[in-house]
């Protein structure tokens, strides 16, 4: 599964949700399962769309740099075999159809009318070469692990590819999308460019609606449309993406008229962007999960009472209502967002199911009692780092530190580069960390698998959890799988308390008035999104 960094490396993957708010704002349909070709914009032409992207990019190939924004940019150029949708299903991309003859085999029919932007037609051999490239640690360090269950990919017909797995994995289809780990390029191009892919001198080549004409790391990307795209001719002719490391500079650029679309508006930034004349922010709800993770192998967090004390010291509801005033953030009742369970339940049904999980309700007196029952009745000193691209996490850290101080715990909070945050999280030396992750594929166990599966950041292992994970990985019934994932959540956030969910936040995009997108949900920007953008009247 991919992951995100807002600035440079980042918070990752995202969640879905067909958003009523989005549809209302855009006056557009919220039919998120519409095929890509049906997503085509109906408005007027746009000569050049200027896009502001947060952070900076060093390499365009998501296999080398899997920041969320990189996924969004590359989705305009390269495609996978399938695209995720906001209702938990997959729609055709470069595979027109697929079948599963058995639990470890997928057979894909490859699109015959797709061409690369250099004019060469897509072949099954290109798909096989791209899968092998994506599974190589040398060429795709950031995403190769997602294809760890891949046994082989072979051409089984003129336009047919057969993929075999080492073991059943019900979510494997999601890995073959451009929202996870597959970006199809031509075999000869991959062979010619080797590990240089995505650099200014070896730009990515794909079958998507746009081709990259220029890439300057840390400055921007220039794209122009490819009128031969199988999905139709986009209304936007050219796209110029500029990377902004400084959010104030980005905002001033928008004020000065240099921005048509600003990607990824944080909840804390949303009020100022909404008040910016000529702009409006639209949100994909619950696209991002924020929580605390505990490492139960590190003192004093090896004691359940200490973990409960910390979890009960954070005022989730008031923080969401009074601090994250963006309007679309919600208290997280689980690590799995309701949108991830859309294959099994309605949005309301999934929300209700997850709300039934026992919660660690905010109460400083209860937190104090928990602490008193631990081996640290008088408190202790610990640290909590927050990544520099998530200012809202910094606010949460300050609030938590303030509350913990009242029960005797000294929490030293620091802003760190995202790489440091990541390194600390997986170092097994820190008992308390933030988790900030996005839903990208819509697979039901996307977040639960990451937070509780092998190599999880809590360094947590529990026989019951492992058994449930193994069962749900092979479970083909969506409802039964959802129930197993809810059970996993109960163990992680209640019984064992290695995860303390804080809130689900939206992924916001700021559009200049007069520019519209045909639909917007968590999955939109992982497919050729600019094909849905046009000038509105």
């Amino acid at each position: 599964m991919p992951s995100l960094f807002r600035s440079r490396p980042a918070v990752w993957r995202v969640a879905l949700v067909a958003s009523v708010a989005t549809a209302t704002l855009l006056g557009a349909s919220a039919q998120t399962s519409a095929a890509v070709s049906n997503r085509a914009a109906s408005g007027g032409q746009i000569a050049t769309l200027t896009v502001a992207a947060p952070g900076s990019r060093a390499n365009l190939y998501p296999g080398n740099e899997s920041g969320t924004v990189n996924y969004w940019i590359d989705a305009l150029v390269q495609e996978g075999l399938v695209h995720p949708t906001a209702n938990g299903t997959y729609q055709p991309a470069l595979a027109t159809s697929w079948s599963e003859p058995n639990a470890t085999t997928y057979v894909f029919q490859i699109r015959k009318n797709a061409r690369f932007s250099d004019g060469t037609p897509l072949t099954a051999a290109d798909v096989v070469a791209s899968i092998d490239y994506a599974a190589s640690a040398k060429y795709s360090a950031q995403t190769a692990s997602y294809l760890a269950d891949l046994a082989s990919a072979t051409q089984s017909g003129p336009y047919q590819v057969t993929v075999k797995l080492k073991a059943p994995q019900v979510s494997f289809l999601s890995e073959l999308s451009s929202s996870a780990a597959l970006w199809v390029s031509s075999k000869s191009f991959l062979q010619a460019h080797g590990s240089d892919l995505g650099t200014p001198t070896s730009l990515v080549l794909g079958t998507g609606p746009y081709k990259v004409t220029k890439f300057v790391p840390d400055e921007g990307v220039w794209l122009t449309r490819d009128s031969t795209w199988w999905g139709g001719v986009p209304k936007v002719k050219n796209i110029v993406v500029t990377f902004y490391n400084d959010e104030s500079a980005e905002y001033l650029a928008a004020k000065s008229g240099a921005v048509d679309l600003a990607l990824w508006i944080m909840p804390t930034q949303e009020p100022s962007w909404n008040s910016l004349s000529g702009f409006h922010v639209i949100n994909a709800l619950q696209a991002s999960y924020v929580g605390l993770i505990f490492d139960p192998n590190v003192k004093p967090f090896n004691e359940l009472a200490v973990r409960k004390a910390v979890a009960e010291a954070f005022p989730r509801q008031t923080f969401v209502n009074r601090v994250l005033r963006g309007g679309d953030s919600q208290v997280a009742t689980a690590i799995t967002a309701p949108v991830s369970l859309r294959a099994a339940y309605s949005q309301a049904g999934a929300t209700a199911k997850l709300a039934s999980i026992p919660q660690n309700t905010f109460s400083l007196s209860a937190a104090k009692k928990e602490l008193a029952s631990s081996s640290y009745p008088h408190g202790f000193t610990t640290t909590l780092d927050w990544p520099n691209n998530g200012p809202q996490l910094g606010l949460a850290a300050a609030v938590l530190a303030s509350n913990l101080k009242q029960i005797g715990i000294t929490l030293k909070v620091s802003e760190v580069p995202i790489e440091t945050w990541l390194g600390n999280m997986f170092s097994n030396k820190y008992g308390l960390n933030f988790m900030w992750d996005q839903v990208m594929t819509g697979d039901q166990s996307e977040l639960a698998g990451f937070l509780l599966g092998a190599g999880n950041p809590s360094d947590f292992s529990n026989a019951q959890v492992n058994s449930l994970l193994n069962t749900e990985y092979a479970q083909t019934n969506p409802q039964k799988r959802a129930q197993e994932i809810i059970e996993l959540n109960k163990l992680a956030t209640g019984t064992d308390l290695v995860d303390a969910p804080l809130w689900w936040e939206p992924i916001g995009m700021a559009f200049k008035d007069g520019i519209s997108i045909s639909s917007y949900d968590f999955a939109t920007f992982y497919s050729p999104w600019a094909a849905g953008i046009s000038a509105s009247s």
Partner: protein
Amino acid sequence: MSAEATTVAWAPAAALSASDSGKGASGAGSVEEVGVPRKRSLAEALARIILLRTAGSVVMLLVISVLIFLLTYLSPGNIITNLTGLHPPTPAVAAALRREYGLNQPLVVQYLHWLDRFVHGNWGRSMRDQTSVSQLFAGRVGVTLALVGLGFAMAVLASVPLGVIAARRAGGMLDRTISAVSVVGLSAPAFATGLLLLYVFAYLVSAFPPAGAGQGLFDDLDHLALPAATLAIGVGAYIVRLTRTAMRRELGSDYVVFARARGVSERRLTFVALRNAAIPVLTMAGLVLSYLVGATILVESTFSLPGLGLLLQESVEFKDFAVVQFLALFIAAVIAAIMLLVDLSYLVLSPEWRQRLRR
């Protein structure tokens, strides 16, 4: 200033140079013959100082390379995590990456391999950008050099005259105004100055683009004007203050009083005083230029300029060994070169230094 200094100051530069060269050329043989330590020719002395300074710089760079290598290794973070992103790699992927980048070897071996490649002209490969360091450097050095050069030129061209004016009007309204403005410049952090300039000149006035490096000479200048001004405001304040101080000292010297009594024009007096004040100003300018090389990080970040400063920051955070090593050594070498040039410039400005060098 002393009488010796006065003599030096009033001696025609061309005549001094000719005299020095003549002594060096004709006197060397005769001094050697009588067993007295001979004076070196100016060329010999220059060659010697350049050789010694270069040798010293090489040793310094070697020490820096060891320190940077160790610090990058010891800094927080994990290179495998950085290479693989948020989601943990499988053991097989992690092992493959360690092999690919030589991270499974002892630290000393890693360093020696790097050193061996480096001295043979192979600067390594960026783990973050997936391109060679030489390509990465070539693609970015132009922006940074242009930014530093323009910022330095702006700072010197604006600050030296302001410092001179402030010195000549010492205590007056103009002096106080210039001093107050320079204090603001000294105090304002670069990112704040940058945002202020963006607000005024990119948003309110719309005179300059808000981001990017531009394409082509004039477009480049257009894009670099605000970031260069941001750099210049910060460092220019230092030059104003130092120029004012040095000029005040010179203008209060005996030789200026004597000259004034002889009826020498104020304009000419200012010029002569400025030349005598040039050594401390030049020293400061050299330090400022060295500082600018490393000060581009915030400015490049604010204005989305793809230069070396931003690259260095990101490479440090990523623990991208090869890039950090190369950039640190490059910056150190540039600073050493600037300092050497500043020292050599003393010889052009001061006959006294030329004499000292030959002893």
